[in-house]
């Protein structure tokens, strides 16, 4: 489908980056995104939704806006830590593109996969393309996808992740191999629609988005990605997360 933007690709891609204490990571992820978009001649913008980080993330965002342009790096802060789901809703108010990319700002999601997401989206006119750590080919198949995988996970982390995905897959049958991943490309109206009906928070939020997408009849493709666990800072996964995840699956099972 043709877009209405004045680039070879005719579309504009808006990245929504929710941040909290990411002053170390933000400049690098913006640099990587800018490089990817420029090399592929795509029209782009990055909406930084910062939850009033005390470490000066916003100051860095302003410096980046000076370098790349205020139309490219758009800072839209919020008053405090209000959660991931509402960060996307907040960011969506300022999106000017027709596609939205959501990803983590800690470079566990590498922007180099975005062109593959876009190619798959175009080839099959998909509503959503999601990154997956668990597949070696894309779905639908394309020859240019390389096998996905993870770096920096110990055995326990792998087991929990595999178990969690197996549980969700068996109970909810969402048709997507990586439910807890959060590196995705959405058509703007599709993201707006799904996010308004999504109620969960935390880990379950990303999973609910996929389950809702399927229930609403949207088409979803998958591209294998390599996932390098946070280099700076800790990623959190404890007993509390596992319990709330299991509860989340139950809620989705009984409501969607």
């Amino acid at each position, binding site marked *: 489908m043709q877009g209405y933007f004045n680039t070879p690709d005719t579309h504009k891609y808006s990245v929504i980056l929710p941040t909290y204490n990411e*002053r*170390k990571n933000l*400049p*690098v992820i913006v*640099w*990587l995104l800018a490089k990817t978009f420029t090399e592929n001649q795509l029209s782009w913008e990055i909406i930084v939704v910062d939850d009033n980080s005390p470490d000066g993330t916003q*100051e*860095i965002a302003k*410096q*980046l806006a*000076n*370098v790349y342009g205020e139309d490219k790096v758009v800072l839209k802060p919020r008053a405090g830590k209000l959660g991931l789901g509402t960060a996307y809703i907040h960011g969506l108010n300022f999106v000017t593109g027709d596609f939205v990319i959501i990803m983590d700002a800690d*470079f566990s999601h*590498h922007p180099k996969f975005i062109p593959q997401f876009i190619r798959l989206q175009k080839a099959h006119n998909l509503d959503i393309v999601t990154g997956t*750590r*668990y597949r*070696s080919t894309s779905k639908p198949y394309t020859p240019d996808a390389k*096998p*996905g*995988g*993870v*770096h*920096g996970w110990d055995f326990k982390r*792998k*087991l929990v992740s*595999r*178990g969690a*995905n*197996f549980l969700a897959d*068996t*109970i*909810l*049958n969402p048709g997507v191999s990586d439910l807890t991943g959060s590196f995705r490309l959405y058509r703007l109206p599709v993201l707006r629609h799904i996010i308004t009906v999504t109620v969960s928070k935390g880990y379950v939020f990303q999973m609910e988005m996929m389950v809702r997408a399927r229930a609403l009849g949207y088409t979803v493709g998958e591209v294998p990605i*390599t*996932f*390098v666990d946070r*280099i700076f800072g800790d990623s959190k996964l404890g007993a509390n997360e596992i319990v709330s995840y299991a509860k989340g699956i139950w809620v*989705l*099972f*009984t*409501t*969607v």
Partner: protein
Amino acid sequence: MARAHRVAAVATVVVVAYLLTLYNFLSVPLVDAQIAEQILAVLPWWLLVSFGSYSLWSIGKGLFTLRETPEAYQELLKEITEAKNDLRTKGVTVD
């Protein structure tokens, strides 16, 4: 109707059919009555064990096939250094 309701509906039908057969209100076609009785008695356990095996196999296979990607890590480290050097020359504060 949520997925839970659909699953519950199918499960109810299956359980009722199983119980009716177990207590001889329905007969099993094409199988000798005595053999059918022996099979029916252990069928739930057989299903349970099968599902358990499938789960273990599924998770085990998933663990085994989950790739390690040290090359992606090395590439990323290089890019981070490159990015920081470039951003410094452009006047962005990087730690």
